């Protein structure tokens, strides 16, 4: 109930912010632009629309997750609104989970609206409907949840600019972890190998959530893979949230 109240309030906060609308607006614009671009190509119209749309849903989602995510806690601290929350009968973990859940709801709304637009555009201009595309969007959502949790963790102890930098770094490295593993295998020194391997297992492997290429080119993705990827995401989110709560619990709100 209390977590829900915080979540609803966070949802309102983001939804009533103009920045959110401009991001959604641009994402929709790119969906539209994909139609124009596809007109320039021969034959592969649907693939261009699918490719560009999936990429733009993912990209703008990440932008929202990072830039709203890092502000979730720091804004409350900066505006001192947290004083009125913590002085109510609410535990700090409830506050933090509520904030996270609020943004997760915003992202869900974003993903739903974008998928709706995407399916509509695709149907209107190519007359096709492909459900597997939605699976790709689902995994994108799980990825957004992981990135948001990372942003939340950083924002519990760091400034917004640093949090954004860290989260962006996690996002980029998260898509390159395969390279880390390759590097570890080729590395001569045992120490370097150990460090690289540790990073490989420690950092989130975000490329697990990327099946865009496969679904666009109609390569089958087994359900077990989808299930595992979701489970991996949920586990990672849980770990990040526990860490956030541990940091947040000890903080002094000066």
């Amino acid at each position, binding site marked *: 109930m209390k977590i829900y109240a915080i979540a609803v309030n966070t949802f309102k906060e983001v939804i009533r912010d103009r920045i959110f609308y401009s991001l959604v607006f641009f994402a929709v614009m790119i969906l539209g632009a994909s139609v124009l671009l596809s007109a320039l190509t021969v034959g592969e119209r649907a693939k261009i629309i699918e490719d560009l749309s999936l990429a733009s849903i993912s990209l703008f989602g990440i932008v929202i997750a990072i830039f709203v995510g890092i502000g979730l806690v720091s804004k409350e601290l900066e505006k001192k609104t947290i004083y009125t929350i913590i002085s109510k*009968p609410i535990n700090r973990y409830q506050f933090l989970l509520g904030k996270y859940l609020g943004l997760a709801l915003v992202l869900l709304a974003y993903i739903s609206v974008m998928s709706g637009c995407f399916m509509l555009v695709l149907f209107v201009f190519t007359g096709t409907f492909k459900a597997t595309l939605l699976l790709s969007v689902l995994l994108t959502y799980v990825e957004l949840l992981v990135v948001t949790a990372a942003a939340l963790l950083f924002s519990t102890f760091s400034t917004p600019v640093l949090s954004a930098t860290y989260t962006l770094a996690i996002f980029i490295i998260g898509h390159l972890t395969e390279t880390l593993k390759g590097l570890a295998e080729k590395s001569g020194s045992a120490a370097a190998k150990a460090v690289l391997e540790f990073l490989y297992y420690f950092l989130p492997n975000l490329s697990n959530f990327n099946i865009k290429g496969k679904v666009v080119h109609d390569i089958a993705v087994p359900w077990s893979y989808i299930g595992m990827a979701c489970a991996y995401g949920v586990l990672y989110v849980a770990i990040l949230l526990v860490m956030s709560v541990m940091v947040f619990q000890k903080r002094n709100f000066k």
Partner: protein
Amino acid sequence: MIRTENLGMVFVTGFLMRKVTALKGLTMEVRKGEVFGFLGPNGAGKTTTLKILMGLIYPTSGKAWIMGRELGDVSVKQGLGFLPEQPYFYDYLTAMEFMDFYGRLFGIGRRERLDRATELLEQVGLGHAKDLQLRKFSKGMQQRIGIAQALINDPELVILDEPMSGLDPIGRKEVRDLIMGLKDKGKTIFFSTHILPDVEVICDRVAILVKGELRATGTVGELIGGMEARSMEMTVEGLAEEDIKALRELSVNLVLRGRQAAAFFDDPDKAKKARALVFERGGDIVSLIPHRGSLEDIFVEEVRRGGRS
């Protein structure tokens, strides 16, 4: 209602880990049903104390109890209302949504939430602004809705950090009346301020905090009564010009008012000598008024003493 024992807070700031002591061994008590004023200059540690009590920061030493339960027990807050200093609120919410949100945090049912929110907004004079977003509120209105949110749970203990700051004289009177109204309902009010005239009017007891240390505590009467008459005003007439000159030398200040002269003394001995002088020279003492200290004098003195130590 509130008890602190040796409460201390040391902040570690900056890269060099410099230690700043914000609060030193604070031991005090706020009793049930009283209006307690927490006084001190800026940076005395008032807000730090309130933040410790509200669980926003953790004390580095000492203990505190609210309503008999030790700090850290979240359930205590069910009966607590708090207004932070210079409050900022969720400015994207309307007044009604805002009150509703805080009501939810207390787990108050929908019907009651709505009733209490409406009633409180009326009470603080914001009945007309129910559906206005807080971003359109003036500073005074922000302060009022801050007080309203602190009362949403009908708390037994209300803690207010500088409730009068930023308000005009009428707003201040309204807050004073509100505090007295709460007292009449048997609530306990603990508030920090540096607006002294208000304190003299409404507080049962006060504590003066300077540089993180408790300098004085008691009723306003006790604190003022504890001081000796600090100055004496003596009005005389029928003195020659040179006598007045002699009187002027004994006094701190002497003002001529037609045939009379008013002399002010800060030292009882000098006042005594002056009286003797007036009699000796054949003058008349028209009036002799001892001035007792006000809360302000005590405050200023404690701050000065605190500054020297």
